[in-house]
């Protein structure tokens, strides 16, 4: 069976904005596929090309084995799209907009709209203008799901959603996946990709640098650790600590290794406070791809510290 999304040597160059160069990857039927990269890496450009908003400079993109440029109308019967920034007709009520969306798809979806809105806590009677960013996003989610598309294309779907709604949303996505639907979603937040995706493509500076299974993904093991020690003279001796900040009360480092080792090492000291979090993607890239001499040169200017 052919892949649901099949992008081959796709290049888009335009104006001042950075495009994408020679992008190739496939999304298979039934998987949740993550598309990660720092902001401005080319995720949205790729998605906008898939949707036919932009014409490819060269290369090709097919969805359901249909060409995105010439067969867009056929493709769009079967896809749902959630944009990074939801911009809908301000003067319409949420419910009116969703009805309009259903009419475009020629489906009677009032039951599904009601059900989805209830799950997300969306008030259909409100005008789009008066909705907060998070609530607009909810309208976008319902809009993307209401016609039960075979493929969901989600651009930064969680930005603007509070954690509780995010949780509900992820459950909705898992339910979609169980129905055999395919989900393609972009993000610059690694942890949400890890929680949800089967495979990921990593894009940087407009180029795909890796496509692999999430569980085999090296970057997943990185943590940013900040420790405040009671004893200012103490030093931490941690394997995989890429960036020990030297002796001092505050130690900050990017850690790659077993969490157990980290905790045991910390336990040897008098710890006043500790933060363990997902590092920003840019920072992970710096370390993950350090071995690549050519790339690390480019890394230098992208990283603040």
């Amino acid at each position: 069976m052919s892949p649901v999304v099949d992008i081959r040597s796709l290049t888009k160059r335009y104006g001042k904005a950075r495009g994408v160069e020679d992008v190739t990857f496939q999304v298979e039927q039934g998987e949740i596929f993550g598309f990660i990269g720092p902001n401005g890496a080319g995720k949205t450009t790729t998605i906008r090309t898939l949707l036919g908003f932009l014409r490819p400079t060269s290369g090709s993109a097919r969805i359901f084995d249909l060409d995105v440029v010439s067969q867009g109308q056929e493709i769009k019967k079967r896809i749902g799209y959630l944009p990074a920034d939801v911009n809908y007709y301000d003067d319409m009520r949420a419910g009116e907009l969703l009805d309009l969306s259903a009419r475009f798809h020629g489906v009677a979806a009032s039951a599904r709209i009601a059900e989805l809105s209830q799950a997300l806590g969306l008030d259909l009677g409100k005008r789009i203008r008066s909705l907060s960013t998070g609530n607009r996003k909810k309208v976008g989610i319902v809009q993307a799901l209401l016609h039960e598309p075979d493929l969901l294309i989600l651009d930064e779907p969680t930005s603007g959603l509070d954690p509780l709604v995010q949780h509900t949303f992820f459950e909705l996505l898992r339910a979609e996946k169980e129905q055999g639907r395919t989900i393609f979603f972009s993000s610059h937040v690694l942890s949400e990709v890890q929680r949800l995706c089967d495979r990921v493509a990593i894009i940087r500076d407009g180029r795909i640098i890796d496509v692999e299974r999430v569980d085999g993904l090296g970057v997943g093991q990185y943590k940013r650790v900040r420790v405040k020690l009671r004893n200012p003279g103490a030093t931490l001796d941690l394997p995989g600590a890429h960036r020990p900040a030297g002796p001092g009360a505050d130690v900050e480092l990017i850690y790659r290794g077993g969490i157990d080792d980290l905790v045991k090492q910390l336990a040897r000291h008098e710890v006043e406070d500790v933060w363990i979090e997902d590092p920003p993607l840019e920072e992970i890239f710096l370390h993950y791809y350090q071995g690549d001499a050519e790339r690390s040169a480019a890394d230098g200017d992208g990283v603040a510290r």
Partner: protein
Amino acid sequence: MSGVLFRNELRRHRRGFLIWAAVLPLLSLFRMAEYPTFYRENRNAQAALEQFSPTEIELFGLDSLRLTEIVDYYGGRIYSLLLLLGSVYVIMLAATILAKEEDDKTVEFLLVKPVTRSSVVTAKLAAVVVYTVALNLVLFLAVWGMFAAFEQEGYDLGTLAVLSVGSLLVHLAFVVVGFLLSVYVVRARTVYPISISLVLLAYFLLIVANSSENAGWVRYLSFFAYVDAADIVRNGAISAVYLVLFASVITAGTVLSYLTYNRKDLSA
């Protein structure tokens, strides 16, 4: 064409249409209501002409009209105003109906639905044409009613019909110009002033053409000059050259709009 989109466009722009379709006949009514008095006070066309300054006479070509007749009175005193204001309305509608979607980014909502870009253009253009035709029909019927109410020596409905067709053609030409403009210029902040300036420029060129002996060629640059009221009243028809020009502008602009919109990258 997407029927869903077409109906939605009609609904979204209904209020603007209703306002213009009420205001323009009302404006006409104020001036038409003065006609019976004007007629009684000026027993012949020459006397009537003396009511106006030489500049006005020259600019609006009043000397070639018999202003005591109701069609001429309408042609000289009201018609060009309706042409101008109607053009402002339709060019603004045409120039924003597509561009505003892109400017507000709502076009992303539209183009992920199962519609082609051509069908979007068709639905939008059709909505503007419907309102343009409707406005001209309303104006024709309203003015006809006023003719019937205020006439003194009878009137020629045929001439009014030709004037009305002329108005429709001018408005359709501006629709196409505005629509084509908006395929290239997306930002509402830019497209509004440009489109209104185009209409005002055309009006200005009409005045230039009317007031200068040597500037006859300028007439070809202004749609308003194609439907000069004095010419139409005198000949009972719009000159064939102008009809061909209208047809060319409308056809070429429409074709170009489709071609360009189908190929363009949507602005982010």
